[in-house]
């Protein structure tokens, strides 16, 4: 069949040639144009129900009475491995994302879907450094995590000393302790203390590879008290290996924005800290 020639209005006396029959009559069942511009130029007043094919975009269109609209041919828009068949105002293809991305609803997207990085979990380092002076104050802590974890390594002071943990300016803590002093266990309980003490006996003033981990749970909530637990492995004032597990509560409903870890006496001689936000 000859290529479509477009549109023509035959008038009385016109001679219908083979070329016209092939190029116009046959093709006017479905009028074929090079582009929508060519169609607009050829058909000044399209009629509702007309059907045309545009060669530049390979699309079939019909005239609604007001505009040319694509004919749904039922053809799949999928072209590539991992493509998803979606819909905007018409059927649409959503190309696969990159490795480890997840499909995410997003009303700002044409199809309402997009591939995006999975919401991050795990631990994020918020602050880190070396202990110095008589206390460490971690301030302006954003409330964007579920929990906080403060990891302290190799801490020791200039004197026999307790550690004192406080959050914000809270001076009311209840806590319990389970202590293993070189094989001898003891349980201890404290109420209404002005600070939370992670250790049972004083720490000795030397580098004993001490290790302390502090967890602050749900620290950003503004309605409930804040749960705390700590674990410390250290050498005590008698230079005896000791483990203390402490758990308790800071009696405040305010979001925790400041964490302070102080020595009861003296200054830090060693130790590093990392504050993690945990999700």
């Amino acid at each position, binding site marked *: 069949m000859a290529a479509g020639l477009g549109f023509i209005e035959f008038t009385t006396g016109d001679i219908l040639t083979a070329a016209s029959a092939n190029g116009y009559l046959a093709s006017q069942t479905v009028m074929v144009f090079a582009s929508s511009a060519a169609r607009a130029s050829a058909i000044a007043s399209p009629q509702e129900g007309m059907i045309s094919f545009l060669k530049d975009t390979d699309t079939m269109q019909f005239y609604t009475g007001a505009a040319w609209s694509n004919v749904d041919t039922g053809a799949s828009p999928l072209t590539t491995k991992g493509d998803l068949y979606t819909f905007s105002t018409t059927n649409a293809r959503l190309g696969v994302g990159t490795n480890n991305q997840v499909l995410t609803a997003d009303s700002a997207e044409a199809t309402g879907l997009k591939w995006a990085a999975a919401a991050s979990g795990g631990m994020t380092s918020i602050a880190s450094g070396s202990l*110095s002076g008589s206390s460490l104050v971690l301030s302006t802590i954003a409330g964007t995590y579920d929990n906080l974890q403060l990891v302290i390594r190799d801490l020791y002071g200039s004197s026999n000393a307790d550690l004192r943990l406080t959050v914000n300016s809270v001076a009311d803590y209840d806590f319990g302790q389970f202590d293993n002093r070189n094989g001898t266990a003891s349980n201890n309980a404290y109420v209404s203390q002005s600070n939370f003490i992670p250790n049972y006996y004083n720490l000795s003033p030397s580098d004993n590879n001490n290790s302390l981990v502090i967890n602050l749970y749900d620290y950003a909530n503004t309605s409930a008290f804040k749960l705390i637990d700590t674990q410390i492995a250290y050498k005590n004032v008698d230079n005896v290996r000791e483990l203390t597990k402490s758990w308790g509560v800071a009696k405040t409903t305010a979001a925790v924005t400041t964490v302070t870890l102080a020595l009861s006496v003296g*200054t830090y001689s060693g130790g590093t800290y990392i*504050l993690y936000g945990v999700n």
Partner: protein
Amino acid sequence: MPNPTIRIHNTETGEVIDRQMTADEFADYQAQQEIDEAKEAERAAKEAAKAELLERLGITAMEAKLLLA
């Protein structure tokens, strides 16, 4: 003698500063030291009393634990 210093780490800006305790902070620090000393004395007294009792009974801590088990 200068007051002890405090290390303040602003987790938002990353700024770390070391400054001396204010008078109020130092007063609180000293008050806490007294509490700590009292607590430590209490712990030591408890330990001493335990050791004295074991000595009077003529048994070890492990044997006392067995008796109470």
